[in-house]
């Protein structure tokens, strides 16, 4: 099923008619096939908004459209079977096996046994469940495994939309990072429209195509891509929410592969000493990198080139670390900080892929040169 766009239209919810509304006239357009994160402080109405999409909560006013169709125009149970729902505590049925849990919606829809069994196998592969887990009961599984089952159960009938309410909040950080990576992997295959409620800005920055930052009362402060949110926060609230380390956070959003190729102070092992010294001079570096058989072989100290021995015989020092084209700029920064040479070597499947310098990172983030607004040189 192809993904559906979701539109929130002046959506409002008031639990207490005398008090302020939980959500106040929220209008938001979420593109089909994208991940949208709803994030904000306590009381911003993000969970309330999410639960209005599948009508677990009914709005006080305003409307929601799924693929152009108003969500109130069909029986609510039918709507919910077409929307995946994943919650923090997972909510697996303790009295049913894993397989039976996953089969919940297919069974309600009347799928036959063969089709259900095939789908369960497919989903197990997709979310990373072992076949021997299928006949176990939920309390025999770890938290991370349970949430994988929760995701499988939500996706069982292949709904075009997936709602997730702090889905990874109850697991430890290591498992959380894995599950986040797996979600991204899933999405690259399935292209669902995913609405993700989270209180973790890093999670939102990592997973979302667009982030809707809500303030108390469901007021939309900014709706932008992660990079835009970090680069150009709309106001002080956004700035403070995103945190002071916006620059560092942006480093996590770009990868080394986005940088233009830079040879750096690196020469082939059979280069002449004159060429070697010229490169060292040009980069004003105390270290010279050496490449042999297309892969990086090590660093040579400038002092060791004083005599006339060929470059290939000079002592080589291994680099402090390497990065790959998939590494984030933040990883690269870490390696640069840890190395005496101030550059990070790019290892592209064993071959030398160039270097990463601080200047390159700054240029990529648009931090070099004059600040366009103030004219100050940064």
């Amino acid at each position: 099923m192809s993904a559906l766009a979701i539109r929130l239209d002046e959506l409002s919810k008031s639990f207490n008619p005398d008090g302020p509304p939980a959500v106040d006239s929220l209008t938001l357009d979420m593109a089909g096939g994208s991940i949208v994160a709803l994030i904000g402080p306590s009381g911003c109405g993000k969970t309330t908004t999410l639960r209005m999409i599948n009508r677990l909560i009914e709005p006080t006013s305003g409307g929601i459209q799924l693929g152009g169709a108003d969500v109130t125009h069909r029986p609510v149970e039918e709507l919910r079977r077409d929307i995946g729902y994943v919650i923090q505590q997972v909510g697996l049925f303790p009295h049913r096996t894993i397989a039976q849990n996953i089969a919940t919606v297919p069974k309600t829809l009347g799928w036959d046994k063969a089709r259900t069994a095939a789908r369960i196998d497919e989903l197990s592969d997709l979310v990373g469940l072992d076949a021997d887990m299928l006949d176990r009961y939920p309390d025999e599984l770890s938290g991370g495994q349970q949430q994988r089952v929760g995701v499988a159960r939500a996706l069982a009938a292949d709904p075009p939309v997936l709602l997730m309410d702090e889905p990874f909040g109850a697991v430890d950080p290591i498992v959380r990072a894995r599950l986040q990576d797996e979600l991204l992997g899933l999405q690259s295959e399935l292209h669902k429209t995913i609405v993700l409620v989270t209180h973790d800005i890093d999670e939102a920055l990592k997973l979302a195509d667009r982030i809707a930052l809500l303030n108390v009362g469901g007021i939309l402060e900014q709706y932008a891509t992660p990079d835009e949110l970090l680069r150009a926060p709309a106001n002080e609230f956004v700035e403070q929410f995103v945190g002071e380390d916006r620059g560092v956070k942006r480093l996590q959003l770009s990868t080394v592969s986005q940088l233009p190729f830079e040879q750096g102070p690196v020469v082939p092992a059979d280069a002449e000493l004159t060429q070697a010294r010229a490169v060292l001079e040009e980069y004003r570096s105390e270290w010279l990198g050496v490449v042999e058989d297309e892969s990086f072989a090590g660093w040579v100290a400038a002092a060791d080139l004083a005599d006339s021995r060929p470059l290939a015989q000079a002592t080589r020092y291994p680099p402090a670390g390497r990065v790959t084209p998939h590494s984030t700029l933040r990883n690269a920064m870490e390696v640069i900080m840890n190395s005496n040479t101030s550059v990070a070597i790019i290892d592209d499947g064993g071959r030398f892929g160039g270097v990463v310098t601080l200047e390159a990172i700054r240029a990529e983030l648009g931090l070099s040169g004059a600040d366009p607004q103030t004219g100050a040189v940064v």
Partner: protein
Amino acid sequence: MLVQDRNPIIRWDYVVDQSDDILAALLQHLELTLLSVALGLAIAAPLSAMALRYGWATNAITGFTGFLYTLPSVALFALLVPLFGLSRVSTVIPLASYTLLILVTNIIAGFRSVPDSVVDAANGLGLTPVRRVIGVQLPLALPSIITGIRIATVSTVGLLTVAAIIGQGGLGRLILDGLRRAFWTPMTVGAVLSILLALALDALIIYLGRAATPWTRKASP
């Protein structure tokens, strides 16, 4: 302890001779027990449903069932006999009312023990309220409900012996008979059989309960 006047704790020749009568008493006891617990369940179910749906009613309902429980059985029998005579109705109604406290308490506790996240997930998956209550909440409430049924059944077996006073007592009739005649055998037989009946019903309910809740037997990692 042998007594000279042919009145030991139990005289087996009497037991064999009266075996038909003893069996009849036992079956009557069993029948009245099952009727009382069944009636109790039939009343407890809607009462519990009301308390679960309308939280404010919980206190009133448990207060009411608690009040019924405090009424002495003999007094209830005495009040009902003029209305319904020395019949099964006069016996079953009070006994059923005594089961209400434990049944209502355990049904409510059972349903309240179902995690909110499970109910929320069930709704989010598009289960209708009926399917959710019957397919999800009820099975999970079952262990607590079965415990309530066990307790209700076992205490009813015991209380029924008192109903001998209005001539309906099943095994209680044997006990009372023996007491009146100062003849120990029927007393012993009545007492021992009522204990065995209680234990047997308890074991049966445990067995049926386990069969109905296979997931509770799996150990956590």
